[in-house]
């Protein structure tokens, strides 16, 4: 083929102690859809953000159309012909679709914004891609799939040469994915280059002309799609041995604590049934957006369910709310500790005691001494590193904040502990401590339900692995049978 549209070679980028990109390379030709694949943290996002003008490489070369690509400025990136379609687009809900396409550069005639020209140009771009939307309607209430279409049209109105779709299908229905893939093909047929990022291998095989696989910041392999199969791609993606140590303590697995039957929530998940037993750690694996977090939120009573039953230790929970869930012995450590788990300016003691204030009261007033003693006990158990128990939690490191969240929920002595991504974004040392703690709690008779995207963690910790895909439970794997390939294949939805 002729000179490529995009050529990235030897790209390296370091964030503090993390080598996000390590001599990565990527080539995209005109009229080609390239599937960019890799596990979370493989470096795809860093590469995309560099092309978006949000990061600057420490070393390496990026050439677009044979010219050196000027980095580090989103506006400049756009002017050089790069457009990015994100998984969650951010349109202006109060503006019309036409204005969303042309915002900041509305066509003018005689000094005034030319609304009819704007609508006409948007309508013709919609027609080019076969999109059936009224340019005059407001963006408010548009489905995510349609919002992405508007973003794509915006990219075309800017005459983007290279269009990057960053996990565009994660939140789409099957019909919407079909339309998206159709649009990607049209863009290719117009001679543009498309980078398609997705964890769903089916789609990659449907739409991509070639694949590039990344791992640990480096490019592992690039090949035309015809020369690879699912098994090969999964091997490239996983590739490494599990080296981390998981201090799994053997536990006596006892009676059923949580039993979920036929749990459904329209648009989120469908017909989910499983059990968690005393002393058992059950992992809920799957891709981001597969409905894992939604299921545990429903079990904790945050989100409503449309049908199904939740039974705790033989008692069916009805009219489910978080306070009833807590009363029944369930605790949930949420994924986003900054937003949902902690009161950042409040002290370690306050945060720890928050869930058990009722127990610490005397005559309606919280006993400060009891609060501090409780927090100190947990801080010792969890080996929390802190100066004073009265320090605000915002001063702690991410790992130590996670420990405070854990102690806050462990303080309620739950019978079922649900943890959502318990070790995301924390350092390896603390991670091992969190693992040790979960394992010890299970050995002491607690039931643990863990949502995690970290495959080594899932394999190392879980007695049983439930895999979700597109809102359904697709596989159940015992500890003995679990391999990264099997989990990944079930989650990505390709028959290996």
């Amino acid at each position, binding site marked *: 083929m002729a000179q490529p549209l995009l050529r990235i070679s030897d790209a390296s980028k370091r964030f503090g102690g993390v080598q996000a990109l390590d001599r990565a390379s990527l080539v995209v030709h005109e009229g080609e859809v390239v599937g960019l694949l890799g596990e979370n943290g493989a470096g795809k996002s860093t590469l995309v953000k560099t092309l978006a003008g949000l990061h600057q490489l420490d070393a390496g070369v990026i050439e677009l159309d044979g010219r050196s690509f000027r980095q580090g400025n989103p506006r400049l990136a756009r002017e050089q012909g790069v457009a990015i379609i994100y998984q969650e687009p951010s349109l*202006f809900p109060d503006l019309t679709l036409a204005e969303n396409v042309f*915002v900041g550069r509305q066509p003018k005639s005689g000094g005034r*914004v030319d609304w009819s020209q704007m609508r006409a140009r948007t309508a013709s771009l919609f027609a080019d891609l076969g999109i059936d939307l009224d340019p005059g309607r407001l963006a408010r209430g548009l489905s995510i799939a349609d919002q992405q279409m508007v973003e794509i049209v915006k990219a075309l109105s800017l005459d983007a040469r290279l269009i990057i779709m960053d996990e565009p299908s994660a939140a789409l229905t099957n019909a919407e994915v079909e339309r998206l893939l159709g649009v990607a093909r049209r863009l290719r047929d117009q001679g543009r280059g498309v980078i398609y990022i997705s964890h769903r291998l089916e789609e990659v095989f449907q739409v991509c002309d070639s694949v590039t696989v990344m791992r640990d910041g480096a490019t592992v392999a690039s090949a035309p799609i015809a020369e690879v199969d699912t098994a090969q791609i999964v091997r490239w993606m996983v590739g490494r041995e599990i080296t981390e140590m998981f201090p799994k303590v053997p536990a006596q697995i006892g009676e059923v604590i949580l039993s979920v039957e036929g749990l459904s929530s329209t648009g989120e998940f469908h017909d989910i049934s499983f059990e968690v037993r005393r002393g058992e750690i059950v992992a809920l694996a799957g891709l981001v957006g597969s409905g894992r977090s939604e299921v545990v939120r429903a079990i904790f009573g945050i989100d409503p369910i449309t049908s199904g039953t939740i039974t705790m230790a033989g008692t069916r929970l009805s009219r489910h709310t978080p306070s009833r869930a807590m009363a029944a012995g369930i605790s949930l450590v949420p994924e986003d500790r900054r937003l949902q788990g902690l009161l950042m300016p409040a002290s370690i003691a306050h945060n720890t005691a928050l869930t058990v204030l009722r127990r610490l009261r005397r005559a309606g007033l919280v006993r400060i001494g009891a609060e501090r003693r409780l927090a100190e006990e947990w801080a010792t158990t969890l080996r929390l590193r802190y100066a004073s128990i009265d320090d605000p939690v915002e001063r702690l490191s991410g790992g130590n904040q996670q420990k405070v969240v854990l102690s806050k929920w462990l303080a309620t002595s739950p019978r079922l502990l649900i943890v959502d991504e318990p070790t995301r974004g924390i350092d390896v040392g603390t991670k091992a401590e969190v693992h040790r703690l979960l394992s010890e709690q299970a050995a002491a008779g607690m039931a643990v339900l863990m949502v995690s995207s970290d495959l080594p963690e899932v394999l190392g910790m879980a007695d049983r692995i439930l895999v979700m895909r597109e809102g359904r439970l697709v596989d159940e794997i015992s500890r003995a049978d679990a391999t990264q390939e099997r989990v990944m294949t079930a989650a990505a939805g390709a028959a290996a």
Partner: protein
Amino acid sequence: MSGGLSRVARLREVPVLSALIVLLLLTAILNPAFRGGEGLKAILIESALIAFLAAGQANLIIMRHIDLSVSSTAGLVSFLIGNTSMNNMGISVPQSLMIAVAVGAAVGIVNGALVAYLKLPSLVVTIGTLYLVRGIFNYLAGGVTVTADALPGWVAAIGSGSILGVPDLFVIALILCVLMTIVQTSTRWGRDLYAIGSNPPAAARVGIPVAHREFAAFVLNGIIAGLAGMLLLFRFSFADATAGLGIELYVVAACVIGGVAIAGGVGTAMGALIGAVLLQAITFALGALGVSQFWQQAVAGALLVLAIAFDRIVALRSTQRINRLAEAPV
């Protein structure tokens, strides 16, 4: 064209305008004294100042900001012009305009710089400048009272004049609101304000200079507040340390009732003008129907809550409709 007609029907200003017309008709039916047109004229005179101020305030509310300092600025300007006239045996139009623009711009620059560049919350900043300017005003005014005989003839002439039966004061407010609506709907500067209010991070991402727009809108609003000080003087031919006291919340109420949602991203100056007239018309109608003044205020407050609730309900219903559509089998 039916498309054009339905677009007009969807405008946020339509329900308020309909409510206003219904209200005026009802009042005219129930109270014969209102039919002469004098009642309407009184409503327009009373709402002019609020509508004038709402033109600038709308820009800020569209961007999810607010400026409560306008009543102090307007009051101070009206007193300064009156006091200068009293000390110098009269004052010219250009001199008055200079005072209005200078004082208004100064307050606007302070508000704008603190909000746009230091990222302080506009509610807090402008409550601060509301009291700050009122404090300076009290110091300057002391016990001084400017009365009609100290003011030049053109002040009273504009205050009581009318064009084709429409009070001058209202004509001035109308012109400003029309111009501002054109700026809001037909210039990139104006469209940027809606983008900022609709999704602030996305606005920055598409390259809109958010801070500059915020700063400019605050300065413009300050200048409008300064000019409103002249309207205040025209209206009352009188100024002391209480001039303009408390009108800032009526301005905000007029905007909200007129469709400029406090959540940002929607509404126009024309809508705010209609809101100002409606607010005044209700007070007036209740008075004409013999309702006591205490109840008139309560009703004005209830109307404000109603306007917000109405907006919320409409939004909720349209979201529900969309969700139902999304769940329907394909």
